[in-house]
């Protein structure tokens, strides 16, 4: 264990990794403050570029973007009342009113401190829980993996605020995409329609870049007249002794909430921040101030969304089941580098995994420093007009997608998925389940078919294995829970 922990300092011992960590954090902050981009879309954009890096450098870059981007959303939430990322939506509720009162520096200081604390707390959770979960998963056979993947997919029902039914359709569509190309066991063409390029299947990059970046470009095309009004601020202030005393319990509580919510497959920072915020209000000494500029409201939401980053990495690395939209992009990065997360990775490449944990730890410290000293500068980035920013993103998306296989088919697919993604978003279908479905699709089919080989084709034998039955019960709960949550609202 101690030896493994020593691998965590690798990112700061290697000058190359340190530069990547530095750039990733900086890039993540920039993406986080730009409404519409954020760590998921930004990660998708940067994904093709990571091909040229070694696996550790690539994932260090993506995780730094993830941590810093999640925090970056708070800057715009507080200064322009527009969350840079969906996870910062709850921060607007009190951050902007506090900024309007002339206390933008205080609000940003609490957001920065809470985010960094939550992020660091969640890395500790990750370091201790991911190996335990991986050890448990080491005992899993094919039927258990199948049931686990089904559980991960049913958790998609509760993603975002959309309809669970629509999320499930989107997830099934993602799995369907994974069946395009040569069949995994019998080498038979499926849904290729005579197109040779499709026999290798649909790549992750065209779908990820299309669904996130291109669909967002189309969303932004309807918002070209949007003008942001930025509240002026002097400097970010560290929380005062009184603020610190008043909010510390909230920060601790939200760290726990965020880490726990993050661990649940397919949940993420958005859900964590909303729960963190509502719990902060429930336990607050001054709940009547919420919505009018409560400092503990900012602490509750911001701590929870960054605490979810480490939590979300637990199922991603230990089981290969993404914990959130951005971890789905990170998982895609691992897969395109030929790595399949899961218990085997913990046994075979601990230095790689602990390097990632270390990168997340130091990314949280770095964004705290950058945020503290540079929030004012980062806030200015929001003033870049969409009409200049998005054509550049279009160019990067096309070249990035083309670069992977040097194939025009990938570019066509990316553009097509951009349009499909836009239509889906327009009608309330989340695009995240498509990506998670695409990633998990092959695992689901392969484990199902291998299980049936073990069971000699008898489907009922699934029910003779206790872990499988447990996951199936959890899956049913995961399907029912979003409906109960909706009714309660």
């Amino acid at each position, binding site marked *: 264990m101690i030896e493994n922990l020593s691998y965590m300092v690798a990112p700061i011992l290697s000058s190359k990794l340190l530069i990547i960590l530095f750039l990733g954090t900086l890039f993540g902050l920039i993406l986080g403050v730009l409404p519409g981009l954020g760590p998921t879309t930004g990660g998708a954009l940067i994904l093709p*570029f990571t091909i*040229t890096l070694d696996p550790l450098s690539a994932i260090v870059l993506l995780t730094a973007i993830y941590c810093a981007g999640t925090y970056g959303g708070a800057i715009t939430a507080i200064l322009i009342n527009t969350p840079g990322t969906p996870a910062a939506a709850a921060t607007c509720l009190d951050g902007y009113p506090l900024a309007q009162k002339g206390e933008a520096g205080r609000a940003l200081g609490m957001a920065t401190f809470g985010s960094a604390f939550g992020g660091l707390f969640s890395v500790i959770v990750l370091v201790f829980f991911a190996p335990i979960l991986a050890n448990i998963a080491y005992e899993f056979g094919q039927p258990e993996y199948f049931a686990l993947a089904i559980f991960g997919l049913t958790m998609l029902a509760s993603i975002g605020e959309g*309809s669970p*039914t*629509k999320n*499930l*359709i989107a997830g*099934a*569509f993602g*799995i*369907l995409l994974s*069946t395009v190309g040569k*069949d995994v*066991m*019998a080498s*038979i*063409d*499926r*849904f290729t329609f005579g197109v040779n390029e499709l026999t290798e299947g649909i790549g992750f990059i065209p779908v990820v870049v299309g669904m996130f970046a*291109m669909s967002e*470009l*189309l969303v932004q*095309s*309807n918002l*070209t*007249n949007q003008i942001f009004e930025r509240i002026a601020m002097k400097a970010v202030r560290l929380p005062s002794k009184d603020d610190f005393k008043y909010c510390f319990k909230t920060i601790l509580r939200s760290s726990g909430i965020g880490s726990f919510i993050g661990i649940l497959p397919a949940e993420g920072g958005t859900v964590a921040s909303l729960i963190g915020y509502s719990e902060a209000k429930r336990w607050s000494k001054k709940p009547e101030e919420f919505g009018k500029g409560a400092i503990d409201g900012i602490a509750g939401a911001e701590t929870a969304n960054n605490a979810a980053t480490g939590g979300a990495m637990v199922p991603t690395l230990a089981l290969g089941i993404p914990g959130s939209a951005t971890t789905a992009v990170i998982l895609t990065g691992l897969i395109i580098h030929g790595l399949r997360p899961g218990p085997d990775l913990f046994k075979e490449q601990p230095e790689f995994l602990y390097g990632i944990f270390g990168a997340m730890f130091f990314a949280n410290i770095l964004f705290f420093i950058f945020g503290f000293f540079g929030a004012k500068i980062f806030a200015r980035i929001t003033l870049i*007009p*969409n*009409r*200049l920013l*998005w*054509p*550049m993103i*279009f*160019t*990067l998306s*096309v*070249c990035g997608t*083309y*670069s992977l296989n*040097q194939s*025009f088919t990938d*570019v*066509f697919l990316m*553009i097509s998925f*951009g*349009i499909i993604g836009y*239509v889906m978003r*327009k*009608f*309330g279908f989340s695009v995240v389940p498509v990506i998670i479905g695409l990633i998990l699709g092959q695992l689901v*089919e392969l484990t*199902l*078919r*291998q*299980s*049936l*080989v073990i069971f000699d*084709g008898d489907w009922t034998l699934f029910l003779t294995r206790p872990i499988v039955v447990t996951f199936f019960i959890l899956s049913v709960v995961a399907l029912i829970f979003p409906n109960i949550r909706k009714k309660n609202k």
Partner: protein
Amino acid sequence: MNSNSFEKKGGFLSALFSSELILLFFIFCFSIFLFVTTFYFDEVPPILVRGIQPATFPKILLGLIFSLNLLLVYFYFSRPKKDYEKQSRIFYKTVGIFIIFPLIALKVDLILALMLSSIAITYFWGEKNLLLNLFLSIVFPILVFLLFEGVLGLRFPPGILTNLYYN
């Protein structure tokens, strides 16, 4: 069925021809078409089949999509309708660029297509400063080209501009 929900939007006919229902109808057609396609997949001889036939898993998925879509149709008629905002003209122009871009990229030149698309997006989205537009739309794709070609070692497809560089 909740009749009030139709009254809000002007009766049964308007509910029947709403864009959401058209999408649900499209999902039905899409899943039926793909379901039929699965019957044309090659089959593995029974002695070699491992677990299930290659067509079975996609069939299960398509059946699931079809059933869930039926639920959506039920919800559509039983719940109050949502109002969807109309698309702006700029949106349609951007989609137009998405459609024309691959044609130019494939037939003429990828970099030229990127430059033209950038100019068009920037212009349609409201940038009236032509010099700034031209500068960004020409310089940025060239920088990206040089980055990919020089630093990342990517070979771009032949075309009018790329041939000038390679020759």
